[in-house]
């Protein structure tokens, strides 16, 4: 199809590369180098979307990332993306996009009823209604929710990959227009590690639009030369298509690079779609340029109203003239160049200038070009809704508040507006920079920032090209110098011939025939969120005078464009209402990101199967191969049970439990934390961190200990063994390993630096297999023929080094099951060999591998606690009925003083007890509560809760542990446990040992 608005030549598009795409199901042609917006305009498509609230028809307003209107749904299926700015989406073959927030079509949208109703829907209307009847709110809300939102999210997983990239540099330059390029030259030539970033597909910024010569060259030639020089410097990194999204403390900036987006969906997903840069810069040069301000006039949102600079970009950069009859509406000189270029491209142009007597060389040029200039006048209305067919113009009164003459209409399909330029101070502001209001430019410019950053060029309020180049050069050189590089060779300054810009005339709200807010016409500020000048007046009237209240009440600046085109206009109008200066009104806070940033890119490659590590032991593969079902314990994968075909968890666990007590079981205990502790003061350290006494422990002997935090609460437990003189091997819970090591280091390094102790984590150094059960010794005898295994030489709570299955091993006679147990530690590389040898040797004795679930049952049968399950960070050793482990003799240990605080020492605290259900087959759910008295329905007063609960095959019944108020004094009493299901179970409080009360088996 013919691109009816495409100019016969010119532009930076590649006319040899036609590109086909679809919009709203219709096929169109464009060229490589187009953005979707440019291609749509080339094809004469001006109606692109519908607005958020009123569903007003909207077109394309800008040519950059500040676009508030032209948001589209890009792509389909798993790759669909909502809210993509048509002005940023580069065209590729097969691109397909749709209008969003409209139904059934963008041309005929039912939601446009809101526009008709708009007089009932002013800012904040929802706070005032939908309150009656109260019960209907959720229904109202449902309707509101469905009406809101813009595009649709995908519903599938993302097929693309993303990557992150850390980097450091001497000088980071944000923005590759003339200022940024000049800065990059200076910094690059100095030898500094320099990164130049620009969010567009090519460097050049405004120079891709403008025609002012530099050193006698066309600006694009200068850009090409400059980029070529920079590309040749290996200390310079060039990052086009990369948006610096955020500026954090200490010169840390993030940037999102679109690696393949411009190519469309990729078959080879190994190349990341986007790369997220994390940059630590010694020095930063901000050269972000400036954004043009729209003029707030009646119906300034119609498709066909665009920024003057944007129109010029479409003409010069994309070779598109989106209308043949154009009205350029301005308060400053810069739009004259648009008018001239449009005229030269063949359009009929009217210039409407708010200034009564513009008089600058460019004005004369425009006149000479045959452009009619309406001075001291304004556009006061638009004819047409889905497209423009006429523009109403009228002269303005001196104060700009009313019309000073009759309105006349000129035929036009396009309005190009300019109310001046706002420096892009977003990143500067994010850097904690303070802004200053510049009266001449009527906008905010950078003032000072605590970070090592400089602003140069248009983002610094410098709008001449010569000024931009000079400032860029200077900033680049100074930044390099501050980063330690001599910049004497920065290069000569550039020669540019241009006119000084003339003054401006601000009319913050252009009047129309009707008083503001009273006619059918609307003066839009925030196009995306449909906030009008009248809404600002309403907010002020109702007392939402603070700029922050204004923002939140009207939602101005809260859309996906974050008010890039609207904020200053909103402030200005508020300042007029309040008769305050604009700086008094102030700005809202600039926050990251500069433009919306893909979550996938920020997540990087750590997603899906690479989300988080699976920590597996040296024997992990064996468990997998033998059908283990795993559970997550922190980031460990632990074998939970080993079902035989047809078994469920209960059945498997019952079998494992029985067999482990009758013959011998084997468990992988490698995950326990292990810390090597050495030094003359090792015992002293243990005495401080454990509640019990450690001085007397002999080499080869082990002891159980409890650790408290300074609040007096149990936070870890484990067995520590004396390996040799001044040398200990501490074990911790699986989840507590890192915490305990940090705890020891904290005290050693900060509080007791004189203690001579070194701690080294050895958790993964050792693979650990535990043999447990009456036949354990027989198995050991088979695999460790050289070890003395008789209980006299190798008793309970002893350790011995030797050979097991031919492997170097440390064997501990400690037990978490209450049965005769050996914890066999070998270097991790032999873990699998050890395990296989033990299985082999155990086979004649009926060995059974068991998992964590069985371990939990076996230890509960013995009343052994699991810290974190039977205790929860509010439990003292006394609460656990473990007075025996709290030394009465030691002067001090961590947490000691807390145990005697009023509340901690109070009787009647929750204490750990055993529970027996009335029905021996009923297993209480963990977390169920005991109550004083069952009532027909809650609330009921509870006295405690079940912490552990299992069916114990060895006790032949269900067993449970519970924390119960004053539990230790209530043994023998019965209470009830009501469940949500309606079932009420009666339980009796007992002690915590359900099996082998004398404790003979472990010593065996």
């Amino acid at each position, binding site marked *: 199809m013919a691109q009816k608005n495409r100019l016969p030549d010119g532009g930076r598009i590649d006319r040899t590369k036609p590109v086909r795409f679809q919009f709203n199901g219709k096929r169109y042609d464009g060229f490589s180098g187009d953005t979707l917006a440019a291609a749509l305009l080339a094809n004469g498509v001006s109606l692109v979307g519908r607005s958020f609230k009123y569903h007003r028809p909207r077109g394309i307003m800008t040519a950059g990332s500040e676009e508030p209107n032209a948001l589209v749904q890009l792509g389909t299926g798993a790759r669909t993306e909502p809210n993509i700015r048509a002005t940023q989406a580069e065209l590729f073959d097969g691109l397909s996009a749709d209008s969003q927030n409209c139904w059934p079509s963008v041309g005929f949208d039912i939601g446009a009823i809101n526009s008709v109703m708009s007089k009932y829907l002013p800012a904040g209307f929802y706070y005032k209604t939908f309150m009656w009847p109260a019960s209907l709110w959720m229904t109202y809300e449902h309707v509101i929710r469905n009406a*809101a*939102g*813009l595009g649709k999210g995908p519903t599938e997983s993302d097929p693309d990959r993303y990557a992150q990239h850390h980097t450091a540099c001497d000088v980071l330059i944000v923005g590759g227009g003339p200022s940024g390029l000049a800065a990059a030259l200076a910094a690059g030539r100095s030898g500094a590690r320099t990164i130049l970033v620009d969010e567009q597909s090519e460097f050049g910024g405004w120079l891709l639009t403008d025609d002012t010569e530099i050193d006698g060259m066309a600006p694009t030639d200068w850009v090409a030369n400059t980029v070529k020089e920079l590309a040749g410097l290996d200390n310079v990194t060039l990052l086009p298509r990369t948006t610096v999204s955020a500026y954090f403390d200490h010169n840390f900036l993030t940037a999102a690079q679109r690696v393949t987006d411009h190519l469309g969906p990729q078959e080879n997903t190994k190349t990341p779609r986007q790369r997220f840069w994390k940059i630590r810069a010694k020095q930063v040069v901000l050269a972000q340029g400036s954004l043009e301000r729209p003029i707030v006039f009646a119906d300034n949102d119609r498709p066909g109203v665009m920024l003057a600079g944007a129109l010029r970009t479409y003409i010069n950069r994309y070779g598109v003239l989106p209308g043949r009859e154009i009205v350029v509406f301005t308060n400053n000189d810069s739009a004259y160049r648009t008018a001239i270029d449009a005229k030269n491209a063949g359009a009929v142009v009217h210039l409407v200038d708010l200034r009564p007597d513009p008089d600058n060389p460019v004005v004369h040029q425009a006149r000479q070009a045959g452009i009619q200039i309406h001075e001291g006048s304004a556009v006061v209305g638009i004819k047409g809704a889905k497209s423009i067919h006429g523009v109403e113009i009228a002269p303005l009164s001196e104060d700009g508040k009313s019309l000073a003459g009759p309105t006349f209409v000129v035929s036009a399909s396009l309005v190009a507006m300019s109310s001046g330029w706002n420096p892009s101070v977003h990143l500067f502001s994010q850097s904690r920079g303070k802004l200053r209001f510049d009266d001449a430019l009527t906008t905010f410019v950078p003032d000072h920032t605590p970070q090592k950053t400089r602003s140069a060029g248009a983002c610094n309020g410098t709008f001449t090209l010569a000024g931009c180049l000079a400032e860029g050069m200077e900033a680049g050189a100074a930044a390099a110098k501050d980063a330690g590089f001599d910049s004497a060779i920065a290069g000569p300054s550039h020669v540019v011939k241009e006119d000084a810009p003339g003054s401006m005339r601000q009319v913050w709200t252009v009047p129309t025939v009707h008083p503001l*807010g009273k006619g059918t016409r609307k003066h839009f500020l925030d196009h995306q969120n449909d906030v009008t000048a009248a809404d600002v007046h309403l907010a002020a009237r109702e007392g939402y005078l603070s700029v922050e209240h204004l923002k939140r009440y009207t939602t101005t600046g809260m859309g996906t464009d974050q008010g890039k085109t609207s904020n200053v206009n909103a402030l200005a109008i508020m300042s007029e209402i309040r008769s305050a200066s604009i700086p008094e009104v102030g700005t809202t806070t600039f926050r990251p990101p500069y433009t919306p940033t893909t979550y996938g890119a920020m997540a990087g490659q750590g997603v899906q199967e690479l989300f988080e590590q699976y920590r597996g032991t040296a024997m992990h593969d064996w468990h997998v191969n033998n059908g283990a079902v795993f559970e997550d314990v922190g980031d460990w994968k632990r074998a939970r049970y080993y079902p035989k075909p047809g078994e469920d968890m209960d059945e498997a666990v019952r079998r494992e439990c029985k067999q482990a007590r009758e013959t011998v079981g084997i468990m992988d205990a490698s995950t326990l934390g292990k810390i090597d502790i050495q030094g003359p003061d090792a015992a002293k350290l243990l005495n401080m961190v454990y509640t019990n006494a450690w001085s007397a422990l002999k080499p080869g002997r082990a002891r159980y200990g409890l650790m408290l935090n300074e609040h007096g609460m149990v936070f870890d437990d484990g067995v520590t063994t004396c390996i040799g003189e001044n040398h200990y091997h501490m074990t911790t819970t699986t989840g507590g390993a890192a915490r305990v090591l940090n705890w020891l280091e904290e005290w050693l390094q900060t509080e007791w630096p004189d203690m001579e102790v070194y701690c080294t984590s050895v958790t993964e150094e050792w693979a650990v297999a535990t043999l447990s059960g009456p036949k354990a010794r027989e198995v050991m005898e088979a695999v460790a023929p050289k070890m003395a295994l008789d209980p006299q030489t190798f008793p309970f709570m002893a350790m011995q080094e030797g050979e097991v299955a031919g492997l170097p091993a440390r064997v501990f006679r400690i037990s978490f099951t209450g049965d005769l147990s050996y914890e066999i530690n070998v270097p991790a590389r032999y873990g699998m060999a050890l395990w296989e040898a033990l299985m082999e040797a155990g086979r004649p004795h009926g060995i059974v591998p068991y998992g964590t679930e069985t371990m939990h049952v076996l230890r509960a049968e013995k009343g052994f606690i699991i810290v974190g399950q039977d205790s929860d960070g509010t439990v003292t050793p006394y609460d656990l009925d473990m007075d025996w482990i709290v030394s009465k003799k030691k002067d001090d240990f961590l947490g000691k003083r807390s145990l005697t605080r009023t509340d901690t020492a109070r009787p009647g605290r929750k204490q750990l007890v055993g529970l027996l259900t009335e029905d021996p087959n009923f297993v209480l759910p963990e977390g169920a509560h005991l109550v004083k008295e069952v009532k027909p329905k809650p609330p009921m007063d509870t006295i405690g809760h079940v912490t552990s609960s299992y069916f114990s095959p060895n006790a032949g019944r269900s067993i449970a542990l519970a924390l119960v108020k004053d539990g230790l004094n209530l043994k023998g009493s019965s209470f009830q446990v009501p469940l949500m299901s309606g079932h009420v179970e009666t339980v009796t409080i007992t002690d915590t040992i359900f099996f082998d009360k004398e404790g003979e088996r472990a010593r065996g």
Partner: protein
Amino acid sequence: MSKYSIFSLIRNAGSYHENWQRAWRSPDPQPEYEVVIIGGGGHGLATAYYLAKECGIRRVAVIEKGWLGGGNTGRNTTIVRSNYLLDESAGIYEHSVKLWEGLSQELNFNVMFSQRGLLHLAHNVHDMQEIGRRGNAIWLNGIDSEFLTPEQVKEMVPLMNINGRYPVLGALLQRRGGTARHDAVAWGYARAADALGVDIIQNCEVTGFDIKNGVVQGVRTTRGDIKAKRVGVVTAGHSTVMADMAGFRMPLESLPLQAMVSEPIKPCIDTVIMSNAVHVYVSQSDKGELVVGAGTDAYISYAQRGGFDMMEHIMGPLVELFPFTSRLRMLRQWGGIVDVTVDRSPILSKTPVEGLYFNCGWGTGGFKCTPGSGHVFAHSIANGEMHPIAAPFSIDRFNTGALIDEAAAAAVAH
């Protein structure tokens, strides 16, 4: 106060919305009030409202150094729930949820309290034990509480990945939980309090106290001294700064807590979802953004912004739990200053200075208690004795050891 309703809206549309009244006045501070409340966040405004409404004390001023609701009230992820483990917590948060349930009507301001349900996901055995205990505790406290199977979770939230690295094993649901429109809460209380005569004074910073013989006499502000025999301090992240002015310390640390929103999209998540093991929480606002949050940064900061690390830490979990979010985009990120106690429970308390009351320590989770806290705090100040619901939350618990340790016991905040 002229009433808001659909009728007033239609009527005002007729006059081009030119006759709406100011939501609240902007009075100059008077030399003396019966009660001064420092801090114009939700809690402070609610306190003032209930003082005027229920305690008959109308000579009340709320002193706010910036703009109303500009503290954590204006920057939180708006989760409301009362499914807390411990009886003391259940007491105060459920008291609050009950007030939420009639709040729009009470204030004649739609605070958009949306009881869309709130899910706590359990991803491992330990989580299951935790929700088991908490779910039962909540239920026995007479608060709604349900256990869901993974299949039921999937049905409620079809876009959730329940078979990820840490599969969903179950969930705890509070149907009466949900969200509310945070700004509207501040504005609604302000408007209603103002209508009862409360002076709301913005852009006025309290810089010191007038204390004689251990008894508070008034406050010093950037707009002059104001006398008051009873002063309530409700300054969230700045509580220790205030305590310092009064000469004592508080068991608090002020940490950055961040949140972020995505670009708005059509409804896709209808519930509030919280996961501790995968460490992210998400809901979708009425406007369409996904509101996402996580834990605090780990260092004290009054900068009211967070670092990038914490944001980044949320991304993996977010995409893990909701793979479709990978192609969505973050629109805005911000931070608040939250005052965190060791036991993650608030402080509502008398202080060493007579007549000076503190309401703070809400940390990462006090928005939900805005009505409840204001209500019991108002009664405490009015009666000179802490309201029974507030009494357990005294500062003294850090000395006696009677912590209300939601953190240790349940490891859930927000």
